[in-house]
């Protein structure tokens, strides 16, 4: 579904991605793991059209999307639950959700999707008039996920969805991701520092180090690999 080849990204003179090549099949959960600063967020933002790669191709269902602006990429059905959640803090919960459905592909479904979001996250329904900035961290993460679903994506990229959340809430977020994949057939890209949990959930995984893919394989196989265990899990 998503095929990336030889992707280079620069910030000025500093290179952030070196020839990244990876592939994600439809209905797969693929984890991209790595340490802080390995280039995970850069990779997500390049796919999302928020950074322009210097070289390489990104094909989504056969169409070349490298270099397209972010709003065009959202229209194709690539959604994102960004690092730090990136909700609109001074707008109400319902306005935040509406903003997820401004893209054209989502407008027709906006009303019914809003009902589905409220059914999925009853806390958001209770707080629909409240300013999003006053929600708890866990609630904000739910809002970010619900807002992304408002855009009717076919593929969702999760960037550090567990960051700063209590362990119980993290488990809840991972369960939501699992259900979105199993029940709704969404393709998932999961970028995480929480290596053990994300590789357990993922079908396959890639290990990103200093902007390069250094290892790939089935989630369980990577989890069993000594190098991965030593570098990222600490056992």
């Amino acid at each position: 579904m998503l095929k990336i080849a030889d992707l280079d990204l620069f910030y000025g003179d500093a290179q952030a991605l070196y020839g990244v090549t990876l592939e994600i099949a439809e209905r797969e959960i693929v984890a991209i793991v790595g340490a802080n600063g390995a280039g995970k967020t850069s990779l997500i933002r390049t796919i999302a059209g928020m950074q322009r790669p210097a070289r390489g191709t990104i094909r989504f269902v056969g169409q070349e999307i490298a270099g397209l602006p972010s709003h065009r990429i959202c229209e194709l059905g690539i959604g994102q639950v960004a690092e730090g959640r990136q909700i609109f803090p001074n707008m109400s919960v319902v306005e935040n959700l509406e903003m997820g459905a401004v893209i054209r592909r989502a407008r027709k479904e906006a009303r019914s999707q809003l009902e589905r979001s409220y059914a999925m996250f009853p806390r958001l329904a209770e707080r629909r008039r409240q300013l999003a900035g006053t929600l708890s961290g866990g609630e904000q993460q739910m809002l970010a996920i619900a807002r992304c679903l408002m855009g009717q994506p076919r593929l969702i990229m999760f960037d550090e969805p567990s960051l700063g959340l209590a362990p119980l809430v993290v488990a809840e977020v991972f369960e939501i991701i699992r259900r979105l994949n199993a029940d709704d057939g969404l393709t998932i890209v999961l970028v995480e520092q929480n290596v053990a949990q994300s590789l357990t959930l993922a079908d396959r995984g890639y290990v990103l180090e200093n902007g390069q893919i250094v290892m790939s394989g089935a989630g369980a196989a990577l989890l069993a690999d000594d190098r991965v265990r030593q570098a990222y899990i600490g056992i």
Partner: protein
Amino acid sequence: MLYLNIILAGLLTGAVYALMAFGLSVIYGVIRIVNFAHGEMMVIGMFAAFALYRWLHLDPIAAMPLVAAVLFLAGYALQRSLINRFVTQPEPIQFLLMIALAMVLTSTMLIVFGPNAHNVQLDYAFDSYEVGGLLFDKVRVFAAAGALVGAALLWGFFQFTRTGKAIRACADNNLGAQVVGLDVARLYGITFGLGVACVGAAGSLMLLLVDVQPYLATDYTLLAFIIVILGGLGRIGGALLGGLLVGVSEALSGFFIDPSMKSMFSYGLLILVLLLRPQGLLGRRA
């Protein structure tokens, strides 16, 4: 009663000031660009209304929607073609761009209309309403009503329409706006267009109250700054309060001291606010 009448005239003029400052506030609040050509755009609005009066005998009140629409398109085109390239540049560069733009606009107006003052002669120019001993100048009432309608329309646009909410979202979290696929560059164009439309509409209304000539521009730029800083940058209610305050202060100082001294008191207000409440009267602390 005389004093009340002076305050009233100040409030009505202040409503037009508020609409002008509203435009500056909207542009800064969303795009984070300080429009140093704001007064020039105000004077363009005045000249546009004057041209419509001269050629089509259109009352400035009737010309206001037309002037606003034309200036919206011009502002949109200007932002998309030129200013958008400077959005991510450092502030001194933006400042130079906007100052250059202001100079180009003033010189163009000088070439087209010359340095002399022009005004409109309306048959109701000296009419007034009397309500319970208070005198309402007809032109001032019309101008203030036009300004309040314009401000209310803009407020409704931001509160209730999809595009208006999307613009607020860009201002609230720019990265978040890109994440959900908002076309930020297009929304910035619309925002700049709306800001320019606001000041253009205020310009047409102002033509009811004062004569127009190109050199007014700098005064209006400074006045708009005073108003938004008084009220609190980026606050819509702030522009309204600041506009009314400056209107009243000008009217009172013009009457009690000398009309040519009126700016001194506006600046005095500004200094007081900066000393006592630097975030502005309605502003939130950063």
